[in-house]
């Protein structure tokens, strides 16, 4: 049991913003240290090999949502669906790694149901993105972030500043690890993967 499942709403060529570029730089290198299965939102369902990783593509069943939280909640069902296929098909998967809150809801589902540790990489937070006064959507996203971060065994960030921000704004019960390389992230995994 030494494999890791990653959850993301973007990975090239399914690109929304900067997260896909970061993951393109990180995941192939990390995959050379620990086998990775990636679940990603795509144009339709399917499995494929990309950058040495097994990729579970999930299409979106719901095309219309009244706001971004509603969209992300529906999206996370798709990610949990793809993640379930990955986990049932690979007895080696022992750890769930989600990227930002947008895929962390599915991370909490999979970690809770399959009783695996959950790690969340946090690149930015609603507390950073939103300018006061916060509207109800900002507050809803903040609460979802808070909920997911509380469920994680560890949060991974890239800077000490982000670590301080999380400690101050979200008070996560798990450890917050500053990792700037795939090797450091693998080091965090070893705590659970042996």
């Amino acid at each position, binding site marked *: 049991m030494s494999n890791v499942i990653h959850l993301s709403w973007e990975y090239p060529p399914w690109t929304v913003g900067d997260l896909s570029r970061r993951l393109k730089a990180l995941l192939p290198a990390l995959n050379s240290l620990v086998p990775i299965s990636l679940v990603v939102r795509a144009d339709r369902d399917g499995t494929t090999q990309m950058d040495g990783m097994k990729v579970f593509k999930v299409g979106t069943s*719901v095309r219309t949502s009244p706001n971004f939280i509603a969209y992300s909640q529906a999206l996370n069902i798709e990610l949990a669906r793809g993640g379930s296929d990955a986990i049932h098909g690979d007895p080696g998967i022992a750890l769930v790694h989600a990227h930002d809150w947008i895929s962390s*809801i599915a991370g909490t589902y999979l970690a809770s*149901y399959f009783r695996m540790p959950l790690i969340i990489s946090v690149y930015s937070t609603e507390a950073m993105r939103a300018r006061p006064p916060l509207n109800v959507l900002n507050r809803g996203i903040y609460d979802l972030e808070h*909920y997911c971060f509380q469920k994680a065994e560890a949060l991974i960030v890239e800077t000490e500043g982000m670590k301080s921000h999380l400690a101050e704004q979200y008070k996560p019960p798990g450890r917050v690890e500053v990792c700037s390389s795939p090797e450091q992230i693998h080091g965090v995994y070893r705590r659970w993967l042996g």
Partner: protein
Amino acid sequence: MRVLMLSWEYPPHLVGGLGRHVENLSRHLAAQGEEVTVMTFTDGSSPPKETVEGVNMIRVNPYTMRYPDFTTWVQGLNMLMVEGASQVPGFDIIHAHDWLSAYAGITLKHMARKPLLATIHATEMGRRGTLHNDTERHIHEMEWWLGFEAWRIICCSNYMSGEIASNLGCPPGKIEVIPNGFDPRLFNTGLGGPVKGEDPGTDEGTKTALFVGRLVHEKGPHLLIKAASILKERGLKFNIVGEGAMKPYLEDMSRKGGLREHVRFLGHVSDLELSELYRRSYACVFPSLYEPFGIVALEAMSAGVPVVVSKTGGLDEIVEDGVNGLEFTPGSAESLAQAIQRLLDEPALYPKLVENGKASLGKYSWPLVAERTRSIYRSVMDEYERGGWKPSPLRGRP
């Protein structure tokens, strides 16, 4: 069989009829030997875990987070239901009710690799007539997704079966019709039968027609006010039980029509008060424009009161015109007034409708509904067992 029932409402937290439906179904399934766990809502005032009449309850509280709207509130509730499912020792089949628990149902189906079954009580397209905005379109798409993921879809009438097939594109062979159950004890309060004056259904010299339902357009309460205006000279009065967004409009309509002495708005009433109102009514009128089933018609029949209903939806399947009730053209106040006039003008009709109405109730018994639901469970489990879609032996929970 271990059934995981998902519902956004369940006593003591009730919003509409869905919660009572799930309660009765769960109770009768448990009485027939099934192991039922209901995942549902609490606002913190009811216990997170308890067993009531053989049904195991797990309640989750969505008010631990903030939401911008109702859709995301429902999603938050479902998110906590998925998490709460880890407290369930095991389940063989998942039974979700409406889009309101579809999110959790679909997620748990894929994680557990256990069959999902859905009861669709009503559809957004049916309720609204069309889809006006992104919230309604989202709900409609969730209903489609639930229908797509479900092994079978249960609905309460042939009308709803057609609506689900056409609006959600479900193959008709996947849809099963089981009429809703009705518990006649609900209105058996020991108060006795209908109050009789010199004429049947006359209370202290006045004949009163009763409407029970939400005061929303789809229930057609505005037609009742128009009919009251047409029937003003006949001395018939109308009691309106229920609340809703149309109430100020209806009150204004009634005032402008000079009907203040003829139409009374009673708001919400207790079951005991409702029972007494049924008992004192000459007739019950349900002018719905959209009605998946129409359990109020069964309540009235049980109370021994003739029903006058619009010829639509489930009401049309419960009522046979001139046999166990009277029907009128949906949306027509004139047709409604004519049906009431017929009841007033044909005294011999009254006892016949009462007698046949009571005789109609037998096929809506809850034990029968539970037995038919179990039969669908068994059929789904049989297909599931023969198929190859199963949890990994290393991943499956008991």
